[in-house]
């Protein structure tokens, strides 16, 4: 009897331990009539696919994706089981792929999908060709995805964003600034002077990386991204004329009171745009959603590229990015998974995703209006791209955020002092 009791207790403990593991919440049950097409006709059950999503279930994008999955089921009979993994998917997906967990598609930052997980992913080139997908979507992003993976295509980008000068059209109007006049350094300085005269601090900044983003952009415009990468990897900042010139640009902005002082914390610094205190910021276009969600502002937004500063790369180069879908190489339902990706990144659902996220749609035939149209047009005019931080992230072990922010804060009186501080990190 005692042995039986002990065995039972041990089993209880084992089950209790097993029960500690918590599975993420599965997607909500569809409200759409199961097994019926939009026309109300019965649709065959064509199996299911499993999608690990980088979104949280309460985000606007998740709600659109959920609705799209329901529409996809009604149209094809394929059920999409969505697991909302959130942004921490990057800490989970590698282990899941290595252990061949049942996943048919997932998403994350598209550069990470293409570069970090590609050993476990299916090359989508033939699926893209078979379905004529490349003709339907922004070509630049597919090219970038291939660049990341030496010609193979491991990710399908969506939620495309670009970067540049995001501005308050209301502030520009109040100061009488024509955005088209910001086509050179002199044009930018003249606009800053007019904005300051009208009571605005021209540039918003926050401690979340926007100072380095701005400096890196100017630097890349002066010497090109490859040269920025070289500096990032090996140092030699004090010998670089371009690095000195970019630092002097910042000092000019700082000393004339054209940048937010003190620099706000993240995201409070960028919220000053929404409070109508600052007029523009150099960041990816997702800053607009952050400011709207954080402040509830109803200002009119505008977007222009960072002007050409005379270097090898002009205003048709920008730092761009996207989320990206990947399909595990071991998935037995890769075609169904690709079918869902195409369903989501073209036509109606792509337009809806663009609408809620204020990013450019992938589908070139999707027509947009207002700010999204401005961003879409800017993307379509790009001829090249910068990586995040325009190459200054190339060396992951040397981070110059503190030095660059110090330059904006006035810790360095001259460009030479700043450049010497950068070199001291090597």
């Amino acid at each position: 009897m005692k042995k039986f009791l002990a065995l039972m207790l041990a089993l209880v403990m084992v089950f209790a331990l097993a029960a500690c593991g918590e599975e993420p919440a599965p997607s909500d049950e569809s409200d759409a009539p199961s097994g019926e097409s939009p026309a109300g006709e019965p649709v065959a059950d064509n199996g299911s696919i499993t999608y690990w999503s980088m979104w949280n279930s309460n985000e606007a994008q998740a709600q659109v994706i959920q609705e799209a999955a329901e529409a996809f089921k009604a149209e094809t009979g394929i059920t999409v089981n969505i697991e909302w993994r959130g942004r921490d998917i990057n800490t989970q997906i590698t282990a899941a792929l290595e252990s061949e967990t049942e996943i048919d598609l997932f998403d994350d930052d598209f550069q990470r999908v293409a570069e970090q997980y590609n050993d476990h992913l299916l090359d989508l080139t033939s699926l893209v060709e078979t379905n004529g997908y490349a003709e339907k979507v922004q070509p630049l992003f597919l090219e970038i995805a291939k660049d990341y993976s030496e010609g193979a295509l491991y990710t399908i980008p969506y939620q495309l964003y670009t970067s540049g000068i995001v501005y308050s059209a209301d502030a520009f109007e109040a100061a009488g600034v024509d955005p088209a006049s910001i086509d050179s350094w002199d044009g930018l300085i003249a606009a800053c002077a007019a904005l300051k005269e009208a009571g605005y601090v021209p540039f918003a900044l926050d401690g979340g990386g926007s100072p380095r983003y701005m400096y890196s952009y100017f630097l890349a415009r002066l010497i090109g991204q490859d040269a920025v990468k070289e500096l990032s990897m090996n140092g030699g900042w004090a010998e670089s004329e371009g690095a000195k010139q970019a630092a002097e640009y910042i000092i000019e902005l700082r000393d004339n009171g054209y940048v937010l002082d003190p620099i706000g914390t993240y995201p409070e610094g960028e919220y000053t745009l929404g409070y109508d205190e600052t007029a523009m910021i150099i960041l990816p276009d997702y800053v607009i959603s952050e400011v709207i969600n954080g402040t509830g502002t109803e200002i009119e937004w505008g977007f222009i590229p960072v002007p050409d500063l005379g270097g090898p790369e002009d205003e048709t180069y920008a730092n761009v990015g996207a989320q990206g879908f990947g399909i595990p190489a071991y998935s037995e339902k890769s075609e169904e998974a690709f079918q869902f990706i195409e369903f989501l990144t073209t036509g109606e659902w792509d337009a809806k995703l663009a609408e809620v996220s204020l990013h450019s749609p992938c589908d070139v035939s999707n027509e947009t209006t207002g700010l999204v149209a401005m961003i879409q047009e800017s993307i379509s005019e790009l001829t090249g791209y910068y990586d995040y931080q325009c190459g200054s992230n190339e060396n992951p072990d040397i981070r110059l955020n503190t030095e660059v922010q110090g330059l904006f804060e006035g810790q360095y009186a001259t460009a030479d002092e700043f450049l010497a501080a950068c070199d001291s990190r090597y």
Partner: protein
Amino acid sequence: MKKSKSMIVCFMAAAVVTLLFMYVYPIIRTVIMSFFNVESVTASTSTWSWAGLDNYTKLFATSIFRTSMWNLLKIWLLGGLLTMAFALLFAVILTSGVRFKNFFRAAIYLPNVISAVAMAAMWRYYVFNARFGFLNSFLEFFGFDAVNWLDTTHIFGAMLVAYCFGSVGYFMLIFLSGIERIPSDIYEAAMIDGVGAFQKFRYITLPLLRGVFKTNLTFWTTSTLTFFVWTRMFSPTETENTTVVPVVYLYNVVFGSKGVTDVDAGRGAAIGVTLAIIMVIVYVVMNKAIKEDDLEF
């Protein structure tokens, strides 16, 4: 009760198996991994390649790792002094017969039951905020200039103060229990001899708290070596030299960071092993420096 071997085995099995698989195995695997080139934590051992001490030599040659270790030392030393001083002060005050002892004890301990994320957000947005933070409102009320507490000059100090504030209550409770263990007749005898309050503290309380100091220092070291959340909250989007600590660097190395997709679990393991060795060294040094209580009371 008659001992039954099978009963002992059954009851211990779950704990032993859990210990072996969830603690011993990961420790051994991490130590071995630190001597190999390994891309991801869960990569099959067939993909590992021998690296010898390369992961360690590269690590110590890396600027950001050295910066992170320097920041960690400052947190341990300066934060430790601040936290232990306040914890001891509060513990002594609360055991001196002050009224509402239970209320003050609960109030000082309260930050420990609040999530570190919530605490850090509270400090960032409501205390240190340059626009509407309490600290600048206070300074301006008395005619002083506002300070940007979260700029590159002040952010480390701001983070340290916030972290220490959240830690004082925990260490105070340990000091409190240590002081309450000291028999009251020792203090009474001292009082009869005309000993003052400071002398009682200096010559009775402090010497009899040596063991408690050792415990607190061990806990403090463990806590600072795993410092992570506060850095992530004070530098939420990018790793900054001003706030980076080894565990944050480890996280970046193992999982990548914004715009950085190169990952290196072998080097991450080397960071983990280095931190564990530091912990052992600190423990050994403390055991040598702070002798076991030679007084029985």
